[in-house]
């Protein structure tokens, strides 16, 4: 049994993938030094030709990874900052994502992008604090946001094994989570939600690190006799609509807590689909960052824009009023 941290779980997933499959290779900045954590020790173990420190040419090396994928490899790219995804948006959504359809199924691009430390990190300010998973869910790139170490391990393994491009966001606020684990960890299929806690009164859909916030609120509300079901979609695209449906059929009430911008975010998608397909007992609620949020540097301001347990509690009470 070991006490596995989220970052270490990512590290183990990369190591196991590299060990099991010679077509897996890693690209990224400072990954030889293991600066961000997930790649620690891998270059020593697997060599500089499979664990490649790249110059600061995000567009270039993302395109390189696409080319390597077309040639039969399974590249993984680590991005130091979520904003670097903006730089490579063309390569990811306009090239990698589209190759399969555009070639009539001749090509596949098994490329994984890993963003350890997505979302806000104290003191990193406006250009380093985005949580842009909704962009990829909109464009149709498979999008994963693990909340726990075992999910991080299992989902990253599935992402690497998947024949399509996948972006894996590892929220900064989840990197510190630890979990007791025994034996080898399983891969976890993409597209399957996880019910972290069953409940009957309200379905709370929580994304990434906010799963832990939601669980804390759920435990607390039990004492008030409120039974909260906490559902972690884990994969935002493709979304596990069946699990959501099953939960809503039970509870009839929905709150989403999601650390990304409000307008056109994943929270919007969940509410929209719920509204289309289920008759809810009460109007649904979502807790998000504000519209178009830019996180200010000062901690007080940064925190003021992120979803909180208080807001969640408030929202749960609100949907229960009906």
């Amino acid at each position: 049994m070991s006490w596995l941290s989220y970052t270490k779980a990512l590290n183990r997933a990369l190591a196991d993938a590299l060990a099991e499959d010679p077509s897996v290779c890693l690209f990224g900045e400072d990954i030889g030094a293991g600066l961000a954590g997930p790649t620690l020790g891998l270059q020593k173990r697997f060599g500089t030709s499979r664990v490649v420190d790249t110059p600061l040419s995000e567009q270039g090396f993302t395109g390189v990874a696409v080319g390597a994928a077309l040639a039969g490899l399974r590249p993984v790219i680590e991005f130091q900052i979520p904003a670097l995804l903006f730089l490579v948006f063309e390569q990811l959504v306009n090239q990698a994502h589209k190759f399969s359809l555009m070639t009539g199924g001749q090509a596949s691009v098994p490329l994984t992008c890993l963003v350890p430390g997505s979302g806000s990190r104290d003191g990193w300010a406006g250009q380093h604090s985005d949580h842009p998973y909704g962009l990829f869910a909109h464009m149709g790139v498979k999008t994963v946001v693990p909340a726990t170490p075992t999910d991080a391990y299992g989902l990253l393994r599935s992402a690497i094994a998947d024949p399509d491009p996948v972006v894996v966001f590892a929220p900064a606020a989840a990197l510190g989570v630890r979990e007791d684990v025994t034996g080898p960890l399983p891969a976890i299929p993409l597209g399957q939600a996880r019910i972290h806690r069953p409940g009957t009164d309200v379905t709370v859909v929580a994304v990434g690190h906010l799963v832990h916030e939601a669980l804390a609120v759920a435990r607390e509300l039990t004492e008030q006799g409120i039974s909260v079901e906490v559902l972690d979609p884990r994969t935002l695209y493709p979304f596990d609509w069946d699990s959501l449906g099953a939960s809503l059929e039970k509870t009839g009430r929905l709150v989403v807590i999601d650390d990304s911008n409000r307008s056109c975010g994943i929270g919007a998608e969940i509410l929209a689909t719920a509204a289309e397909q289920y008759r809810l007992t009460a109007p649904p609620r979502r807790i998000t960052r504000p519209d178009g949020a830019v996180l200010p540097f000062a901690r007080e301001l940064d925190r003021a824009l992120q979803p909180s347990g208080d807001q969640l509690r408030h929202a749960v009470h609100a949907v229960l009023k009906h």
Partner: protein
Amino acid sequence: MSLRTPADRYRMIRLIRGFEELALELVASGDIVGGTHPYIGQEAVAVGVCSALRPEDRLTSTHRGHGHVLAKGADPARLLAELTGREGGLNRGRGGSMHAADLSLGILGANGIVGAGAPIAVGAAWAAQLAGEPRVVVSFFGDGALNQGVLLESFNLAAMWQVPVVFVCENNGYATTLPAAVAVAGSALGRAEAFGIPAVAVDGMDTEAVREAALAAVDRARSGGGPEFLECSTYRFEGHHTMERRIKLDYRPAEEIASWRERDPLARAAALVGDTTAIDAEVAEQLYQAREFALASPAPDPAGACDHLYASGLRPRAGAVA
């Protein structure tokens, strides 16, 4: 189709020319929807370069890609069926002119985004190097691409990693209406050389000159000598896009067009062959068959509009729910 002899190369130039003329006709008749970027005038580049390649070598192409795709050996009938959006097309009608690909021949696709093919080529070359395969990758692009950051990043990565890639710049003097003279500061050759990439100026209207330079570059790359850059001076006899046949633009002086037409690579290649009657007849027959095939091939079934969107077989939610 071998390109080993001058007669082979003449035949291919003849084929590309004829194919492009046929495409113009089918654009006019409405059988090709949306138009094409004609390659007429630049055939010596595609044919000279591809004559230096082996079947296992790869290439990335551009929006003006028919010549590259044919010279690397794609079936003209299936390319034409692709242009006419038929199920029998190279890409099952999913790609069209700008995405024509034949992965089985190492053709990693025409591309709709200027410069986007370059890092893909570097990545495929990197993969070959990692695998220890003696494969070379050619990246075709225009003078306009010289101003794309991602292309310059690719130069750096290719040079730093010494991968077997040959960059072929088809400098036809214009990016749509913009003269290279007011768009490219310094020189094309100087740009490659700045990254330590050997760079050679080639008469892009002379198939044999292109072939010679390509043979040297490809051989060097194949034997581990790293990337090379060829600047092929050439000219497109037609407008940037077939659209230009309908709208009048005056960015190129008539005398300039006329003087380049005098250097037609077709005539030059024919001169090395002597009597071309038999070849011409064969090519004409081949194109007649291509046309028959393309126009007889069925249109794709709308029910398959999302086929191949994901290599994993994931079927996305539809846009309207009954």
